[in-house]
């Protein structure tokens, strides 16, 4: 590990002395590993082997037990039963420190670093370079910059972490783990918030770590990434380990079948409806982050907006929804010119927005599911001074039932739900509002295949009822397969427009990247 090792070796790794595990031999073995929460089996007895130096992908729907497995391996939670062998010897992994000191690290989907500190300070967090009790800030910045440059990340070590994009922060988190002399590195959906270039950088880093002998566990919803990176792949379903395959000997269809018992054709569920009246038309719309966007959405069609993160798609959506002030251009709603100067105005016209970030924009996480679902419609639920509590309960329960949100009650906090169920809550908010135009911004990020399919089928139901949909996604197959018309954004502008499947993936991608 050139570059990495110089810094990383300051850690004493507690591997059994003298005999590093040769490549291809078991480095971590799980024997009948089990985790119960009360009466609930989050992980049923699982027996798995991770081989030294391999990239081992783990796939499964939300709730399949992936997070439980990671938490067990990183010492965040302790097992109920079973045995873990690290380099052939039984280990406890009773707390995160033990895992880290043995060289087991994880990079989480949501970056868990300090946004107000510099990149370098974050990379050295908890392990700062000191001289006589004083921090060697300069030396740390230089060392961190060295590591970042060495990894090929074009990131300034002195910058404040919070000023970077989420994708860049993720790379910093990865560099941090890499720097700490990791032998076994777990990635939990690392690309969920990354742009394509950032993903490419991350993949290069993963391959490089692998070539240096690091064992990688890679958890992802994106099966194409699994085939691109992994040597072997294990599938979890309902807390059960249902199988491990070499990636060379399996295919996407088989994995999906293992994960959900459903075939791939059932996932991208596209129904064509005759396009009806024009719902919304923008002419030369400009605002913060986007300029000169002209497009129309008709009833019964899905208009896809594709582009890299930061290309202006979400900004356009927020502008159309009245969240940001528009600087130029016109909006026509069902043929007549309108000024959308507030979210309320947009809602009253019949526009609904399921925003990009569930956590920051979509949900009140520490409030009940029912309150979240009803938030846009409390006005309708009010009779006189007070809310009609029966109607409030009925509306929440109906959305929970219709969308199959897995919860025992509408009173459970939204934070207790998995990503897929949270997304359903965000969508459920708008179904009772009676909107005509639905804007879905990255509706399937961090959502498992089964829930994805449900969401796509929901799109069809909405179109059938005469609604129109704007679908924003960074995941090309999704917008490509579902959109009746596909617009490509780059640097805040529309750079290409296509009909249903009229352009190739490569063409669309090239427009988005500007190649």
């Amino acid at each position, binding site marked *: 590990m050139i570059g990495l090792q110089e810094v990383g070796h300051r850690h004493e790794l507690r591997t059994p002395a003298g005999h590093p595990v040769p490549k291809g031999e078991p480095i971590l073995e799980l024997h009948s590993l089990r985790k119960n929460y009360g009466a609930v089996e989050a992980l049923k007895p699982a027996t798995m082997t991770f081989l030294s130096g391999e990239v081992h992908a783990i796939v499964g729907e939300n*709730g399949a037990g992936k997070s439980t497995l990671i938490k067990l391996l990183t010492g965040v*939670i302790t097992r109920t039963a079973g045995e873990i062998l690290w380099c052939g010897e039984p280990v406890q992994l009773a707390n995160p420190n033990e895992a880290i000191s043995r060289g087991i690290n994880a990079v989480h989907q949501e970056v868990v670093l300090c946004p107000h500190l510099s990149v370098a300070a974050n990379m050295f967090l908890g392990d700062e370079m000191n001289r006589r009790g004083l921090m060697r800030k300069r030396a740390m910045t230089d060392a961190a910059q060295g590591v970042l440059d060495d990894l090929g990340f074009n990131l300034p070590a002195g910058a404040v972490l919070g000023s970077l994009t989420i994708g860049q922060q993720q790379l910093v988190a990865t560099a941090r783990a890499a720097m700490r002399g990791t032998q076994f590195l777990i990635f939990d959906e690392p690309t969920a918030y990354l742009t394509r270039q950032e993903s490419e950088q991350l993949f290069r880093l993963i391959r490089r770590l692998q070539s240096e002998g690091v064992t990688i566990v890679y958890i992802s919803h994106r099966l194409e990434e699994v085939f691109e990176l992994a040597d072997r792949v294990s599938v979890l379903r309902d807390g059960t380990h249902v199988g491990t395959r070499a990636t060379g000997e399996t295919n996407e269809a088989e994995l999906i079948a293992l994960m959900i018992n459903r075939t791939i054709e059932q996932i991208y569920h596209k129904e064509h409806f005759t396009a009806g009246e024009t719902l919304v038309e923008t002419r030369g719309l400009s605002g913060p982050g986007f300029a000169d966007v002209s497009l129309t959405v008709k009833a019964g069609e899905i208009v896809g907006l594709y582009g890299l993160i930061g290309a202006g798609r979400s900004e356009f959506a927020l502008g159309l929804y009245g969240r940001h002030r528009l600087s130029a251009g016109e909006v026509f709603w069902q043929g007549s010119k309108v000024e959308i100067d507030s979210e309320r105005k947009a809602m009253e016209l019949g526009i609904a927005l399921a925003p990009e970030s569930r956590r920051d924009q979509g949900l009140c996480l520490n409030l009940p599911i029912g309150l979240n679902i009803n938030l846009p419609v409390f006005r309708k639920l009010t009779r006189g001074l007070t809310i009609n509590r029966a109607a409030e309960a009925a509306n929440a329960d109906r959305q929970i039932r219709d969308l199959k949100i897995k919860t025992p009650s509408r*009173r*459970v906090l939204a934070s207790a739900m*998995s990503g897929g169920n949270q997304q359903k809550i965000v969508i459920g908010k708008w179904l009772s509002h009676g909107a005509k135009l639905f804007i879905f911004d990255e509706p399937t990020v961090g959502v498992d295949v089964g829930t994805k399919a449900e969401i796509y089928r929901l799109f069809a139901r909405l179109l059938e009822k005469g609604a129109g949909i704007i679908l924003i996604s960074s995941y090309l197959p999704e917008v490509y397969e579902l959109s009746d018309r596909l617009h490509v954004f780059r640097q805040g502008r529309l750079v290409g427009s296509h009909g249903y499947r009229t352009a190739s993936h490569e063409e669309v991608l090239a427009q988005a990247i500007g190649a």
Partner: protein
Amino acid sequence: MSVETVESSAGPTPRKGISILFGLTLVGLLLFLWLLLGFATNSFWTPNNISNLLRQGAMTAILAVGQTFVIITAGIDLSVGAVVGFTSVIVAWLLAAGVPLWLALIATLAIGVLIGAFHAFGIVRMGLPAFIITLATLTSLRGIGLLITNGSTISITNEAFTNFSRADFLGVPSLFWMVIVVAVPAYIFLHLSRFGRYLFAVGSNAEAARLSGVNVNRTTYLAYILSSTCAAFVGLLLASRIGIGNATQAEGWELQAIASSVIGGTSLFGAVGSVHGPLLGAFILATINNGANLLNVNSFWQRIITGLLIIVIVYFDQLRRRGER
């Protein structure tokens, strides 16, 4: 994620049940204190002392309810004690200037509305943290009050006004009736109207609330205006009770109000709170003060006990929340 899903399908106890349980714990604590003081002293269960206790707790209770609205939006109102002192000066000053009683009362409450609107203006338009803007008015209002009175006090000669606080209705002190006058509409507002839901939503995630069509700015104005108006109302009650207007009165009452609210289960991180919680919290604090007086405990101890109680109750509340996850 998987863990959470599994846990949720196991069925975490619905939130409402827990909040009722927590409310009952507070009621239990209050009853326990009353029983204890009943055994420990001869004078606790005398009508005189109970009236006194209800009067003592009433003003903090009203402040605490107003404060709770603000804390639910993840804000804080440090100015309420100063508003109480300031409005006691205003009403005394107006009465001394010969303004009719009804007009003086309305004008004083209107000043409360204006102070709250100013707080919200500072937060919404100027982007100041709630802590800062209300800290600034805390010190400024006391200054303005002292300027008006030139550092002294204004006596109130209007007997209709001063008799009010000593009056009873159906054997219960009128000051305690005022708690009910405030608490019932407050309960309807917070728990039964959509504006209450909006307060919670803004406190939980203002951006999500905004994108769901909630007018976040208006909700913020509402919370701070309610808090300051409750404080102005308490200013009237205090002026009636002590018969003077003095800007230095009600020193530290903002902390009493915040403590009552927190003891009553309000989370300083926002989005958790009720109306009955702060009421119970205020009367628990009043009982401790009252009991300490009866038991001849050094009044300095009362402060220490209050501090310890806050730590214990909030700690148990934290444990409860952790268990919920």
